[in-house]
C-alpha cells in the first residue's frame, strides 16, 4: 500500500497533483482512492488530498483517510501539521519557497527541499508548480516510470478537455524529474 498526502493552500494545485497520482495508479490496474480535503478545511483556504493505492492488482484500499502516509508533499508550512498522520520514517517533500529552512522535523523523517516557484518560473509556467513538485516526487520515490507518468497525466487532462496544455505540463513535470 502506498499512502501520499499532497497539501497546500487552495489554488496551488494540490488536488490536481494528487489526482494525477491516483489516475496513474488506476490506469495501471491498481486499486486507487483519492480523497480531497473537504468542507471547512477547504473553505478555510487550506487544501489537501490523500491518495492511497495498492502495490499489486489484488491489494485493496481499506480506510480512505490519512493514517500512516509514506510521503507528505507540503506546498506550504501549515501542511507540515499532517506529519501527525505520517509514518515515523516518511519522506517529506517541501516547497522551499514557502517553508522556512530551519523548520524542525521529527527525527527519522527524510526531507527534500525544492524551490518549485523558482523552478516553475524558469520555464515560464508559474501555474506548473504542482507538476514540478509531482515530477520530483515520482522520480525520487520511484512511484512510476517517468514516460508512463507523463503519458498518464496527458491522458487525464485530455479526458477533461484540457489536452491543449499538455506540452507545458510535460515540461513542468520533466523539470521536476531533473531537479532530483
Amino acid at each position, binding site marked *: 500500500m502506498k499512502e501520499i498526502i499532497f497539501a497546500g493552500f487552495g489554488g496551488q494545485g494540490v488536488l490536481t497533483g494528487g*489526482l494525477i497520482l491516483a489516475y496513474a495508479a*488506476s490506469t495501471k490496474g491498481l486499486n486507487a*482512492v483519492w480523497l*480531497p480535503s473537504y*468542507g471547512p478545511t477547504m473553505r478555510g483556504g487550506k487544501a489537501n488530498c490523500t491518495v492511497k493505492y495498492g502495490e499489486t492488482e489484488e491489494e485493496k484500499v481499506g480506510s*480512505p*483517510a490519512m493514517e500512516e502516509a509514506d510521503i507528505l508533499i507540503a506546498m506550504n508550512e501549515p501542511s507540515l501539521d499532517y506529519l501527525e498522520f505520517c509514518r515515523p520514517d516518511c519522506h517529506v517533500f517541501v516547497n522551499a519557497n514557502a517553508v522556512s529552512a530551519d523548520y524542525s522535523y521529527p527525527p527519522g523523517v527524510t526531507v527534500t527541499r525544492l524551490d518549485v516557484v523558482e523552478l516553475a518560473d524558469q520555464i515560464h509556467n508559474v501555474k506548473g508548480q504542482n507538476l514540478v513538485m509531482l515530477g520530483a516526487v515520482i522520480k525520487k520515490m520511484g512511484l512510476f516510470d517517468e514516460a508512463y507518468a507523463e503519458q498518464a497525466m496527458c491522458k487525464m487532462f485530455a479526458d477533461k478537455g484540457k489536452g491543449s496544455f499538455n506540452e507545458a505540463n510535460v515540461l513542468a513535470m520533466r523539470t521536476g524529474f531533473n531537479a532530483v
Partner: protein
Amino acid sequence: MAKELLKGNVAVAEAALRGGCDFFAGYPITPSTETLEYLSHRMPELGMETRFVQSENEIAAMNMVMGAASAGARALTASSGPGISLKAEGMSYAAHYAIPYVVLNVQRWGTGLGSLKSGQADYYRDCKGGGHGDYHNVVFAPNSIQEMVDDIYEAWDIAEKYRVGVTIFSEAVLGQMMEGVEMPPFKKREGDLDWGIDGTGSKGMKYPGGDGQEYIDFELSKYERIIPEMQRWEQYRTEDADYVFVAFGLPSRVCVDAVDKLRGSGEKVGLFRPKILWPFPHKGFEELYRMNPHVKGFISVEMNDMGQMVDDVALGAKRAGYCVPTYCYPCGGGVPRVKMVLAKYNEIITGELKEMY
C-alpha cells in the same frame, strides 16, 4: 478492463441512469450536490426520454418524485441529512401509496444543521422509517463506490418488485472521494408494471389505501417478503474471533485494516458488515453463531455521537443465541482512524470501556 476513476456522487448518478432512472428532482445541499449537478447536464444529453428538475425546495422534489413514479417513471431524489428531513412527509405518503422510488442520502454529521463532516447520524431515521407512520425503506449501505454503483443499479428492480422506497445510504466522504469503477450497461425495466397512471384509466394505482384491514394486510405481507429476501451481509475473519466489530459504510473499511493489524499481533478479531441495514441481516448473525458461538463481545463502530446501529447489533446477537456484551465506539464526525479503533479495542479488553448492552 481498466476501471474509470470517478467521484462517488458522480458515479452513483451515472449508475442510476444506467439502472433506468428517467426522472430526477432535487435541491442542492453539500455534500450531495455533485449528483444533481451531474444529472442536470447528463439527463438532457440522454434526450427527451428523461426529465431533470431542480425544484424550489426539498419537499417539492419528493412530491414530484411521487407523481413521476405514479406514472411509471424510475424516479430519484438526492440530498443529505437535513434535506431528507424536509422530504419526510412525502416519503411517508409514498410509503402509504406503495409508490416505488429511490432516495440517495449523502450523510453528514450532526443534529439540526449539523456540520459538513462525514457522518452516519441518520441510521435511526432512515432505517426505522423516517416520516410518520409505520413503514420501512430498504436501506443499502455500500462501503465502496463500486458497491454504491451496483446498489443503485439494482435499486428500482427492488423498489418495483415490492412497491417500496429504496434508500442508498452514502456518506460525505464516500460521495467526495474517487475510486476506480466499472459501469454496468444501460438497462430498462423488464416487462410492464401492472399498475400506474397512464392516461387511459385502465390500470390505476392498485393499492388498497384507506385504514382498513385490507390495507394493513397489504403492507404486512409486503414486509414479510422483504425481510427474509433482502438479508445481505459480509463477514471477515470471524470464524474464530473472540471479538467482532460491526460496521457499515466507510468505518467498515477502517475496521478491515484494524482487524488485520490486531490479527498481526495475535488478537482474534473479525468484522461483520451489514450490506443492507433495513432489513437488518439477522440471518447473518445466525450464520455467525452456527460457525462461531464463542464470540465474547460485539463492537459497533459508527460515525455518530451516541451510537445508533448498536441497538440492532445487540438485538441481532441476542436473537442469534449469544449472551455476550455489545460495546459501541461512536467516533463522531469524520472517518475514524485505524489507530482510534485499536485504542478503543484496547479499552474494551482491559475493561475500561463498559458495554452498552
